[in-house]
């Protein structure tokens, strides 16, 4: 289990430094961004290598601060890029600076969105702004993620997911998806690592929605997750049957879905009977496509298991990141939790 490391700064974002897939190493360096402080910082931390110290299961050394860097304003999103540049005042209002709320990278392109409803595209090696989609949204854009290399997905305060094709020059989304009921603001979005049409979102009411972007404009399934705003949702990058969400109510949930059958999904090919009995809607590609457990309409049938990952209720968990077997999260209680034995 984890213990908290108190860092005297409210943490708004935590991200692991990516580890190359070939090295079967567990990640050991992560970055955190703070918010709501007079001097905000982006700090880089390292947790020691557990193997060399021969520590017992579950107990790990405290994260040690490697370096930190001052940051003007709250850190609202964090991504690792190999080159860093500064693009000041990219997001702005007519009379004020507007906070940027989300960042997505697909090297070398960087896309940011902000409270001013703009989508801005940068390149890591380019000094100026590459492209601006003005007035992409009349409300605040809260998060952005890459769907394919040329397409991004944004979520806004009106509960809409908008798909943007960056190759096209017109400033309108190629697709808009939303819930038909109450327009609940969405705050986070993440794409399934292998199946690019599956997207999960979380919003103000703490519901976890899983969408299939290819079909319909409605979410595939809605699950009650948290009792307050969900701040981040992440599919596990290498084991996508696992999903993690964190929320304002101070909990971090680990969702585990069992595949519809015991055999691994890539062997399922033509076996339609086991799949159609589970889903309320037939998948678009018929039973030839590989079904993901997430697209089962009835959660009770797809054996979704949820576990709380934090030992006790804390103040809001603002951010989490998971890589390999390691999970790191940051809270408003100015604490960082690191768990190196995530059962995935």
């Amino acid at each position, binding site marked *: 289990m984890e213990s*908290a490391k108190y860092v005297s700064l409210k943490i708004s974002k935590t991200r692991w430094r990516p580890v190359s897939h070939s090295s079967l190493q567990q990640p050991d360096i992560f970055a955190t961004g703070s918010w709501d402080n*007079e001097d905000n910082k982006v700090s880089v931390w390292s947790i020691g290598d557990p193997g060399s110290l021969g520590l017992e299961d579950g107990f790990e050394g405290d994260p040690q601060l490697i370096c930190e860097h001052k940051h003007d304003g709250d850190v609202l999103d964090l991504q690792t890029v190999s080159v860093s540049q500064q693009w000041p005042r990219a997001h702005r209002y007519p009379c004020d600076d507007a906070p940027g709320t989300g960042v997505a990278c697909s090297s070398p392109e960087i896309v940011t969105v902000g409270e*001013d409803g703009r989508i801005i595209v940068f390149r890591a090696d380019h000094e100026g702004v590459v492209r601006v989609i003005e007035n992409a949204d*009349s409300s605040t854009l809260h998060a952005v993620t890459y769907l394919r290399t040329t397409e991004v997905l944004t979520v806004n*305060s009106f509960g809409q997911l908008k798909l943007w094709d960056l190759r096209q020059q017109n400033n309108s989304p190629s697709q*808009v998806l939303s819930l*038909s009921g109450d327009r609940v603001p969405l705050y986070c979005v993440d794409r399934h690592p292998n199946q690019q049409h599956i997207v999960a979102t979380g919003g*103000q009411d703490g519901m976890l929605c899983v969408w299939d972007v290819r079909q319909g404009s409605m979410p595939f399934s809605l699950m009650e997750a948290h009792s307050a705003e969900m701040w981040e949702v992440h599919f596990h990058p290498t084991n996508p049957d696992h999903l993690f969400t964190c929320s*304002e109510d101070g909990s971090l949930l680990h969702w585990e879905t069992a595949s519809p059958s015991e055999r691994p999904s890539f062997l399922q090919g033509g076996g339609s009977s086991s799949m159609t009995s589970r889903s309320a809607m037939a998948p678009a590609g018929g039973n030839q496509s590989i079904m993901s457990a997430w697209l089962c309409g009835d959660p009770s049938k797809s054996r979704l298991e949820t576990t709380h990952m934090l030992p006790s209720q804390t103040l809001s968990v603002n951010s989490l990141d998971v890589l390999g077997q390691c999970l790191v999260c940051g809270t408003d*209680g100015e604490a960082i939790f690191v768990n190196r034995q995530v059962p995935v």
Partner: protein
Amino acid sequence: MEEVDVNPTVTNIPAIRHGKHMGFAWGPEDILVYETQFKASGPSLSGPGGSFIHKVRKDEDIHSPILRKLFNESHHIFVGLQTIKEDVPSKSKKPQFVSISRNYRSVIRACMEELQQVAVSTKDTEMATQYGNQVSILLAIELIWNLCEVLFIDAAPAGSLLLHLLDWVRLHNADADEKAKDVLQSDSPAEHHHYWDVVVSYVLQGRLEEARQMLAKQATRQPASRNMYKLMDGLLSKMPFYNPGGTQTLTEFDVKWRNWHEEVDRYLKDNSFSSNYHLELICKILVGDEDALLEQKELLSTWYHFLITRLLYCHPTVKPIELHYYAQSCLTMFLDSRSVQEPLDSILLAAFEFDIYLVIKDCSIVLNNWWFVAHLTDLLDHCKLLHSHNLNFGSNMREFLLIEYASGLFTHHSLWQCAVDYFDHCPELGRACLELQIERVPLDTERKALKVLRICEDRQMSEQVRSICKIMAMRALRNNRLGSALSWSIRAKDAAFATLISERFLQDYCTKGTFSDLDLIDNLGPAMLLSDRLTFLGKYREFHKLYGEKRFKEAAKLLLSLMTAKIAPRSFWMTLLTDALPLLEQKEVIFSADQTYELMYCLEELTSSLDTAAPGADSPMQEQDVEQTKVELLRLSLARNLAMAIVKEGTVDT
């Protein structure tokens, strides 16, 4: 007990020029100070004054990054404490309370150690002194807390009481261990100049096993005095210590102890140790000789150490209520005429007297931060040790202290979130205070506003929700972010504001001819029903969509219903009727006869109201002409449509 009277400290404001008068205003936890032009005598100066406002803060601790960890961790413990169930009787909860008290103390210790490390490693002398000060304050706090835990929370009876007090003293006297380390690490420990200091310290602290081990080293060096050392060793090993878990009663222990005491006394009087000064001294200490103890002032270093040692060797079965007699006398004996009684001493004395209120009161005065008293009082309250001690304004002491502490936290740009939980657990005044404070949290980003809103919504503070949403919506409106503004007013269910925003949209439409933010209006969903104007906006846009899709009949029906159901504001009717024109002019009859009658009725209503309204002398003649033409065109179209409709409806298909 007299109030602790200290001279107020003087703080220089560096940027205000010498000789100038300062103006000031009180803030919640600080003072705002500025330079003025006022002159006590003579004419006021002219010319530019200082252009800065200075903020003078009393409590620096909140802003120290290391102490922040203290605030956060203790907040976590506090919340955990509040959730302990009330139905279980307090007796069985005692171990829980003791462990919570230990948690608090370990948090203090951790902070202290970190501060100590930083104090040692920093090169800045001013910072080093500041850290040093903080460390000593934390030391004192932990000392007091520990004593309170022993006396009030653990409330050990006679017998165990002394054992706990011994632990307390040992914990706060690290000198002995440091010296011991030095001595043991030297080549010949028995010859080290601190050797006897260490042995005597061990005896003073009742650590007789360790004393015996140290003495053994000396014994081997002096084979001639072997017998003496053996005797001393025997005495030390035979000293009885009360075992709370054992079967021995207190009286039995007392008897045993007295026997041992007499034996030691006998040996002392026999001059068995007279040849060795140190051993004789140890013997005197074991007997509890006050003068011998007082001679060891340096090793004891504090009066409470003296007190505990004296109790150990004179009255090990001391009862809690007897403590304060000994405490007072020890204090007087220990302090000679030169040293003065410090605030810490008075607080500890008050604790020994079991005067909880005095302890809390003195601590509040001495410390510059409510953290300690608030948490300690809360814990003691949970242990049901505080009778409700009503203050002037009716709330009890615990609540008062918690509110003071939380209010202080609220002024911090970051720690305000912790403060919310404290207010939650103050049943009488907490909510009112929270309502006042939460509105004043500066909202820089939407995310912060969302968190503040969540806090308010969870506690059903609808006033505050509305006010915060209004602030955010106004800000969005100012930046021309109509969609954001609308989403804020939907959250607050603020119909008036939604109406305002819809008006803006409609105005935009009238000036530009097209709708902005179509993605918003097209997808209003149930939010449309929030305000009439908003509904109209949604429906009007729907009309345009239907028209664009060439679903004229439905468009016409919708248009008519907008007017007849009075959803459309009167000012907009002209526009709507003008929109109806192309529908009327279509080759195919779209409006039925009934519908045309209704349209005509609306037109009449509109024109009659326009007529009765004072014919604007200010509206230029051209406008009136345009209006007139429009109305005439409409009348013509309506008449033509009516004719065609009647004919069409009258026709029977054969």
